[in-house]
């Protein structure tokens, strides 16, 4: 499926970066965003660029396009396109190359399409301006290209404006636009991050096919190691403006050398691992901003192997290790396998009585049914995860639980008290205190105008946990200890904190009143992987200590698998499958669960994945099909039946139930999606 990797040492690379240095010039001074970056991209090769947010990935992609905005400048090195230095090209030459020989696809498809022009005009522009063809010819080519990227109903899409088509379709259009002139190099800057996982799977597949078909070289920028593993042959891991490790995917994923790469892998939840048997190991500390990088190795302040006097002295150069290059002074010494030993296991917390009991809960917004007949429960000390893609009604449920919305019908009991239709103002202080929320967006979760300490203190005061000012202060400091933040942070304002730190404060705030139930609505999905691991672990450890019931909402199955005792899978407002984590991850599957599982990119080379691609996008929640909500995209759909009849709930073992029309045996006979590979590649 993927084109075989060519020999990277022979022939002219289509794109080459030599000792590339890029800086942004701001009023704070020069920000060296990228330092000493090298890259050789051979024709037809797919190269991945991974790293956490802010490490300079996009900067490299834009530098290749020679488009760094007003304040960005290439301060050193060369960029060679087919052996020619791009820095010495005239603007007109550059213009000719852009969009025809090198093309780029961006993260947010909606933002990269002109809202006031039809898709047709935006596509046709490319051949018109690059090849001088007639408008009709240009349109013909555009249409053809839309067919190639497997868009349905191409004629309609040609005439549509960007907002009239779905996000997945927009991304395909953007890809079609990039491919129209059959470029030699295609730069993809996080092309799927804004999309739902099942849609993402389709796009990733498409990119792979296209690369194979056109022989285009790909530079694939992503923060998702799994995605790189599935799409590229070679990769570069970046940290804080520098490449720290490059090599082929096989080499790097199976025997990584740089401590950072290892840390990164250690913090990614892998399907098959859970919080008790294989806790994640977060990298300590956080990414230093470009203007305050440490001396010596950029990673030395966070590295377990850093040697004072060695790693913190001089800049470190890339050095070859096997077929790879690694930017580490101690690369040989620290390769011992014990370095990767897993962190200690935790005892599973005891599970108590049912605390949250949901029966037939529905919520309508006018004609839109955000939740339909939800039924499940959660016990004391248990983590129940709700997974599902955007718009399936996860947050709606959380809001009902928190009393911000009222259920339209059905029951919701917490500790025996019905609260489904009681808004928060009408709930008892005790109930409010016992039911707290952790929110998704770290930038929004704290009020930017008040200090962190005062926001926690307010909760303590409000719930009457403490009344004396000195003791409130003491409690605030204790809570900061609990979430492992320095005590001085009490006087800081949210903008002085990083995303992960904010999320910790959010957690401290939620737990300030010792709640019995905490609802966490996507608490880690906006965070970088390394931070994600730390925050998720924190949540788990507090839960363990306090015996809290945690309702964990996420769209990321890997995270969910890692944390949850039980999983509830939702699609378009309905529960399609629920059971313990193990049950949901093993066959039988609901076809949607199967697709969801398959769509999760897996970075662990020991795991094999069966590919299940579903077509199309999520239908609008306003007009769900009358039968099974998934019937429009289901590969197994039974004609007439699925689309029109609501599916029956089939019970398998204990808690495991699946709402599906497929016969029990068919379900039971499903192959597992993820399996252990016999031998690591």
């Amino acid at each position, binding site marked *: 499926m993927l084109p075989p990797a060519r020999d990277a040492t022979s022939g002219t690379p289509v794109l080459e970066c030599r000792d590339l240095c890029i800086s942004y010039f701001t009023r704070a001074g020069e920000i060296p965003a990228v330092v000493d970056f090298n890259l050789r991209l051979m024709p037809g090769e797919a190269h991945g660029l991974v790293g956490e947010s802010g490490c300079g990935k996009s900067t490299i992609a834009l530098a290749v396009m020679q*488009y760094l905005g007003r304040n960005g400048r290439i301060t050193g090195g060369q960029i060679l396109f087919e052996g020619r230095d791009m820095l010495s090209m005239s603007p007109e030459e550059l213009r000719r*190359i*852009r*969009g025809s020989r090198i093309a780029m696809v961006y993260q947010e498809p909606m*933002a*990269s*399409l002109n*809202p006031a022009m039809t898709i047709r005009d935006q596509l046709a522009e490319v051949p018109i*301006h690059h090849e001088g063809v007639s408008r009709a010819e240009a349109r013909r080519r555009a249409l053809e290209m839309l067919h190639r990227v497997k868009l349905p109903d191409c004629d309609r899409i040609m005439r549509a*404006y960007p907002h009239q088509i779905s996000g997945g379709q927009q991304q395909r259009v953007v890809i079609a636009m990039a491919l129209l002139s059959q470029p030699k190099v295609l730069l993809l800057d996080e092309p799927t991050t804004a999309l739902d996982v099942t849609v993402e799977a389709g796009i990733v597949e498409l990119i792979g096919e296209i690369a194979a078909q056109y022989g285009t070289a790909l530079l694939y920028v992503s923060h998702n190691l799994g995605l790189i593993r599935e799409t590229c042959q070679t990769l570069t891991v970046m940290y804080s403006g520098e490449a720290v490790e490059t090599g082929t995917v096989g080499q790097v994923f199976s025997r990584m050398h740089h401590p950072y790469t290892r840390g990164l892998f250690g913090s990614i939840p892998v399907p098959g691992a859970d919080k008790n048997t294989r806790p994640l190991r977060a990298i300590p500390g956080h990414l230093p901003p470009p203007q305050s990088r440490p001396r010596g190795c950029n990673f030395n302040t966070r590295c377990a192997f850093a040697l004072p006097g060695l790693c913190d002295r001089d800049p470190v150069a890339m050095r070859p290790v096997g077929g790879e290059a690694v930017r580490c002074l101690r690369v040989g010494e620290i390769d011992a396998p014990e370095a990767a030993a897993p962190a200690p296991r935790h005892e599973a917390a005891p599970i108590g009585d049912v605390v949250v009991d949901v029966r037939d809960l529905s919520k309508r917004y006018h004609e839109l049914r955000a939740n339909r007949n939800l039924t499940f429960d959660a016990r004391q000390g248990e983590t129940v995860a709700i997974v599902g893609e955007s718009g399936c009604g996860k947050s709606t449920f959380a809001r009902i639980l928190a009393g911000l919305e009222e259920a339209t019908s059905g029951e919701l009991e917490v500790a025996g008290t019905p609260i489904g239709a009681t808004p928060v103002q009408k709930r008892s202080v005790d109930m409010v205190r016992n039911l707290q929320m952790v929110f998704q967006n770290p930038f929004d979760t704290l009020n930017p105008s008040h200090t962190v300490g005062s926001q926690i203190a307010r909760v303590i005061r409000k719930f009457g946990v403490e009344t004396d000012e000195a003791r409130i202060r003491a409690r605030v400091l204790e809570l900061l200890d609990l979430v492992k933040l320095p005590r001085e942070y009490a006087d800081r304002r949210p903008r002085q904190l990083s995303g992960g730190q904010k999320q910790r404060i959010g957690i401290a705030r939620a737990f300030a009143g010792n709640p019995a139930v905490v609802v966490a609505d996507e608490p880690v999905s906006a965070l970088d992987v390394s931070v994600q691991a730390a925050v998720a672990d924190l949540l788990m450890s507090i839960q363990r200590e306090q015996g809290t019931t945690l309702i964990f909402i996420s769209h990321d199955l890997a995270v969910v698998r890692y944390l949850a005792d039980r999983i509830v899978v939702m699609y378009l407002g309905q529960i399609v499958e629920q059971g313990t984590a193990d049950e949901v991850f093993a066959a039988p599957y609901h076809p949607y669960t199967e697709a969801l599982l398959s769509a999760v990119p897996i970075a662990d080379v020991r795991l094999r994945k069966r590919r299940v691609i579903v077509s199309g996008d999520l239908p609008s929640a306003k007009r769900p099909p009358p039968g099974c909500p998934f019937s429009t995209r289901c590969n197994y759909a039974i004609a007439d039946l699925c689309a029109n009849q609501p599916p029956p709930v089939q019970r398998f073992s204990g808690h495991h139930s699946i709402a599906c029309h497929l016969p029990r045996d068919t379900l039971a006979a499903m192959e597992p999606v993820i399996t252990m590979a016999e031998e690591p590649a």
Partner: protein
Amino acid sequence: MIKMISARLGQMLLTMAVVTFVLFAIFDSDQFRRQVATAELGGFGMATLSEDGYQKWLESKGLTQPFFVRYVDWIGHVATGDLGRSMQKNVAVSTLLGERLRATGTLAFFVFLFMIPISLTLGALAGMREGSLLDRVISQFCVLTTSIPQVATAVVLTVVLGLGLGWVPTKASMAGGFNPVDLVLPVLTLLLYDIGYVARMTRASMAEVMTSHYIRTALLKGIPYSRVIIDHALRNALIVPFTLIFLQLNWLLSQVVVVEVFFQYNGFGRMLYDAAMYGDVEVIQAATLVAVAVAVISQLLSDIGYILLNPRVRLK
């Protein structure tokens, strides 16, 4: 769309009813009737007028009837197109209003004629390259012109162009018939501020569009810069200014008061000012109806313009 239009027009009627009711109520006070009588008869006359005489005078003006009767009457008349009579000017309000609106319309026409192309061009040029020298010059010019109160502009223009250089008449009463040269100063006064304002808005809109990702996409598609500006940037950047231009109508209605009073131009603003100072209720009422209608309709036009120009909203 039709729903929106009718809803807005309904709202407009409601607003008109409320506003005219409030005005009627305010002007119904005894104090106000006396003020009108004083304006009519003069201070010396009022001092010699007997109470009977005053009552007779009120009666002759139809002011003795209870207020709601007059209001309902007035509404009835307005519904049939009769806007009443100006006490101060002794003509039918509809005639007066018609003439004055035409005059102000002429003024507005010239203001818009120059303002639209100039301000859009300036704004687009400035916004195209944010932070460039051209941008700085245009922006500062705009801040400066929008900082000078119109009374000051009017005075200075009169001194320089009217008296100093003697190029144009200093007053625009059009007493000797319509004379386009008379319009120079009022139009210039209105223009100076308005150009600055609209250009600033255009610049902001353009600058925002220029930083958008689709402009980056277009440039990196290899489309020539000029085509990117014309095909991609302007099309989006001018949506806001275009809708803003309709809203300027409402703004203009307010600004013409100062300018028309200063330049003695017989338009809507001067009429309203005179009427307000005199307490000429029916003129004020009629002018208010116009003002409300202009406000609502210009808002409506601006919204419709926005919808039509912006496919994102249009095709929802």
